């Protein structure tokens, strides 16, 4: 068994390719960071649309989240990448020179917004309505009540789901290579192509190790934050 395997599989390539891949994680994080920023904003608007009783806005938000939930990221990515330029061309605007990363950020923002909408909505609903009434009764304005009372509590509830959505986004972000982004995944494919497809297994294993470590770090980070914030909750209860 050994001989054939050795010829194709050499663990040295795993350790060699990790330092080559790591610098490109910046690109991955940049795309993720921007998508989180825009996605959270849009997700917040959608969540407000769902929470408020306005029927049309709620319907639109419902259709949006259902459609996005049912769309594979790779399909959304290409739909945006080919779709937006072809729509703007109809209005005489040429987007050929626009950086590919822009379309990637748009696609993942739209996807993240759908996830965040549900996260924000369920977190808001988890906070006891009496909290808001109590805040108003002690003289806080509506906005003050939301910012100082509702939001901090909802945030603690939302935290695990925010963590999960973020991890999902990072993993889905790997697909950006399909339209030519040179992030960590794109770089891995470039290395493989430069090797004439030899030792691709080792490079993908190196890639999976990097993603795995990043996921574990983020997971632990969120657990820590959750612990710290929940601790505050208990002291409030005691006093």
């Amino acid at each position, binding site marked *: 068994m050994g001989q054939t*395997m050795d010829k194709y599989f050499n663990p040295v390539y795993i350790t060699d390719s990790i330092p080559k891949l790591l610098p490109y994680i910046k690109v991955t994080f940049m795309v993720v960071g921007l998508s989180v920023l825009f996605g959270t904003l849009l997700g917040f608007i959608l969540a407000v649309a769902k929470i408020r009783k306005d029927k049309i806005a709620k319907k639109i938000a419902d259709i949006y989240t259902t459609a996005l939930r*049912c769309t594979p*990221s790779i399909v959304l990515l290409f*739909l945006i990448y080919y779709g937006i330029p072809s729509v703007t061309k109809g209005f005489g605007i040429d987007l050929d020179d626009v950086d590919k990363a822009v379309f990637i950020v748009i696609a993942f923002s739209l996807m993240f917004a759908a996830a965040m909408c549900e996260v924000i909505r369920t977190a808001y609903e988890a906070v006891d309505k009496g909290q808001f009434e109590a805040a108003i009764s002690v003289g806080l304005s509506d906005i003050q009540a939301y910012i100082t009372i509702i939001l901090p509590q909802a945030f603690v509830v939302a935290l695990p789901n925010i963590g999960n959505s973020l991890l999902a986004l990072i993993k*889905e*972000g*790997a*697909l950006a290579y399909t339209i030519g982004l040179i992030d960590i995944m794109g770089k891995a494919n470039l290395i493989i192509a430069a090797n004439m497809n030899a030792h691709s297994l080792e490079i993908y*294993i190196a890639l999976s190790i990097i*993603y795995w470590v990043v996921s574990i770090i983020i997971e632990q980070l969120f657990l820590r934050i959750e612990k710290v914030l929940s601790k505050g909750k208990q002291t409030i209860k005691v006093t």
Partner: protein
Amino acid sequence: MLNYKFLVDTFFVALSGAPTAILITVVSLLIAIPLGFLLALVRINEVKFFNRFAQVYVSFIRGTPMIVQIFIIYNSVPLILATIFTKLNIKINIYDVNPIWYAFIVFSLNTIAILTEVFRSALGTVSKGQLEAAQSVGLTNVQAYTKIIIPQALVVALPNICTAITNLIKGTSLCYAMSLKEITLRAKVAANVGYNYVEAYIDIFLVYLIICIIVEYGFKLYENRLRAYKGVSA
């Protein structure tokens, strides 16, 4: 603007890939449900060694992109098979193996990890007293699980199972990486001729939307039925 004839024609091309996507989904579920349940029990009962193994396995699958998992399997399984085939003198050319087998492996391995977590958290919601009560009236462990624990855990697990299945169906769109002709690749190939990518991706989008909405609706109906039982017994 849009080529409407192509849009309509390609919709059916994309739809013709649906059976492949559904087959992969069903096979993966058939493999992953029992194994995922087993691993969930291993985790809950903290079986030595296997518990640690399950932990690492689930963490790896959940911590890495599916496309990377696909590439790892697609690049390693043929190597392993080729060495086994030459050793056993089996005359099968590794390139003749239908890529759907690799898809079965990837998506089963992935779904096992996802369902392990789903089952584990669902079983955790059923109180231990339920198992003890079942045993005290003379039920065996297996009976207690099939008649008492699982039906209760299932109600809790159902929304997560639904999410896992829709994610699985969506995940099959990545089979293009294994040159497996399912929904996405079929429509993409059709689009290559005249560069009608926008139309093709609208069609692909619609096919996944229809399949996932049917699955979600089916689960909602089933959930309501289970809830109705709960209402009667309460």
